[in-house]
């Protein structure tokens, strides 16, 4: 964080960075429009196809809200040029970003890349467990389905669910954290105690439980993951907002007669930017892991739809004969999570945020510790 001073640009008319911020908002909304349109292209196979239309609409609105918050947060933070330079200086961070973008593109473009139908069972007897060949670059699975196609479409589920869940959790976290910091008093106390209480439940176990209470579906999965991922970020947002609450420029905005919501949105949120963006990217890795755990245990994406966790589960019977079937999804998960973490580390250094790495480093701040997804 570069401190409140940089924010004066947005406060003083004429020096506004609203244009830049608007552009990044448009960009991130556009990203989701592309995702949703492509998703609609193959509705049954998408990462975003929820049971009914209303849930779709609700999801769309939440996503847009999450994108806006992230864009609002990401657009400011003072001197983006410096941030970009610092991020680009880290080879690991750039490599992580490249892998993340590559995997996302592969997932979004799955219908164009895959030469086979991920669900089509052509000849389960003669084409099962084929070794990699020109026709099936990654071989086939136990029902003779093309592994490459399943891996690509599985990425749409795993990444679609994870990123959506992270966006929603960020939206919840920002509302809860800002609300708690600005309302103070009993609202603050209740929200933070609730966050503490929810953090006491081991995450994997609690998500399993939530999914069990509703019918397992993509929508349930997203909501359950989001509901158990917002607390740490909310805590962070609250702490930052509580610090900014007392600064002069916030007092000035308040004295100018701005409503509390407007003060929060225009003057506090942009300064909470860095930590939120960093937390979002560090969370993504853990959330991908969480999604694969759930699918692995049969509570996530329902077969025959492909998802990375479920693919490992289905491949377990042939571990001694066709081990490569399990290898691809396992590699995909691992590479993706590593990439998100390296990107998150780079962002953390670029934004100079003191936030613990989930795998346990970063001395002194471990008390706020990461939790394995």
């Amino acid at each position, binding site marked *: 964080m570069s401190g409140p001073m940089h924010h004066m640009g947005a406060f003083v008319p004429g020096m506004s960075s609203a244009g830049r911020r608007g552009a990044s908002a448009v960009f991130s909304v556009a990203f989701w429009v592309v995702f949703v349109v492509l998703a609609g292209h193959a509705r049954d196979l998408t990462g975003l196809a929820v049971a009914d239309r209303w849930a779709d609409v609700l999801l769309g609105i939440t996503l847009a809200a999450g994108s806006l918050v992230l864009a609002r947060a990401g657009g400011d933070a003072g001197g983006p040029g410096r941030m970009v330079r610092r991020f680009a200086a880290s080879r690991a961070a750039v490599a992580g970003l490249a892998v993340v973008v590559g995997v996302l593109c592969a997932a979004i473009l799955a219908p164009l890349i895959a030469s086979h139908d991920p669900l089509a069972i052509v000849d389960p007897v003669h084409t099962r467990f084929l070794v990699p060949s020109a026709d099936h670059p990654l071989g086939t699975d136990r029902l003779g389905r093309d592994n490459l196609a399943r891996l690509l479409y599985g990425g749409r589920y795993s990444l679609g669910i994870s990123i959506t869940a992270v966006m929603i959790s960020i939206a919840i976290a920002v509302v809860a954290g800002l609300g708690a910091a600005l309302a103070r008093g009993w609202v603050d106390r209740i929200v933070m105690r609730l966050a*503490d209480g929810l953090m006491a439940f081991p995450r994997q*176990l609690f998500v399993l439980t939530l999914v*069990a209470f509703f019918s397992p579906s993509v929508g349930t999965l997203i909501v359950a993951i989001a509901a158990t991922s917002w607390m740490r970020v909310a805590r962070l947002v609250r702490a930052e907002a509580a610090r900014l609450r007392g600064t002069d420029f916030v007092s000035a905005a308040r004295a100018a007669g701005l409503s509390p919501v407007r003060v929060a949105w225009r003057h506090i949120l942009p300064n909470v930017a860095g930590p939120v963006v960093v937390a979002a990217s560090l969370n993504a890795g853990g959330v991908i892991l969480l999604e694969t*755990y759930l699918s692995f245990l049969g509570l996530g994406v329902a077969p025959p739809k492909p998802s990375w966790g479920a693919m490992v589960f289905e491949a377990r019977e042939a571990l001694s004969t066709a*081990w490569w079937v399990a290898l691809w999804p*396992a590699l995909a*998960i691992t590479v993706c999570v590593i990439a998100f973490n390296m990107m998150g580390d780079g962002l953390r250094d670029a934004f100079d945020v003191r936030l613990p790495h989930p795998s346990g480093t970063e001395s002194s701040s471990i*008390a706020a510790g990461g939790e*394995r997804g």
Partner: protein
Amino acid sequence: MARYILRRCLDAAVLLVVTLGVTFVLVQLAPGDPSSRYIGGDIDPAAAARIRRNLGLDDPVPVQFVRWSASVARGDFGRSFVTGLPVRDSLATALPRTLWLTGVAFLVQILAGLLLGVPAAGRSGLAARVPTVIALVFYSLPAFCLAYLLIGVFSLHLGWLPIGGLETPGAGTSSLIDRMRHLILPAGTLALSGAAGWARYARGAVSDVLSEHHITALRARGAGPGLIRWKHGLRGALPQLITLAGVSVPYLIGGAVVVEKVFAWPGIGSLVVDAIAARDYPVVLAVNLIAAMAVVIASLAVDLSCGWLDPRTILASDPADGVAGRGSGQ
């Protein structure tokens, strides 16, 4: 100090009440109200109402909450929807097995982490980079993938170790060696996931201590490098390491759920996964509550031992803004 202990205990008590509240809300949300076990088919509505009243389901929700909390405090978690047996009985069988598994994994990962991390402290280059890279890979590799990797190598390929289970079935009285052989792979999976992180973290924590003035003073007096590293370095890093131990409790429990399922280890992880599949809500909620309590108690223990080891913690933790403090210590 007394005030600190009191405050931490109060915090933990409040946290326990919150976790009870969260669980109670889930109990209320669970489909199938407890009276449905007694009310079936076309029963007279008046009789149904009487049964509900007798079960206390007409009482105000706060009253129900207090009554439910009291029964939980007595260790009464109700009966399983599936087996009809008290949940407490299944927990009593499963919990020691999970404690055995996670306890061994916990000790192994700390030992391995310290043995790898402490010698690397204060050194740069490869010694610094290798644990970091390995830690990141093990963090990013899902536990079930690691489990299958180990099964593939040690059970299927080499044939050294059993694929899963608690002991060889039908072997009569189970020998300790047989049990240990069954323990190696699941405990190893759990320990490996965490050991690299421990190594990375121990290295960082001890490095910080080694750059402090009192260590320089010790060096000047001629203390041996091994003594400095293992005694004084580790001692200084202890509060941070204890904090990490507390943080790793929820990880271990969460990891145990998946690992137990893969290795067919009949602990609470397998219990809860099967219960979720069968919509056996009393069992699911009891396991969640116990796990949350374990985490709260672990974080209280961390706070208290850190306060005891390093009195500066006590001073630092007394801000005007209580809620913004360390909180659950997670």
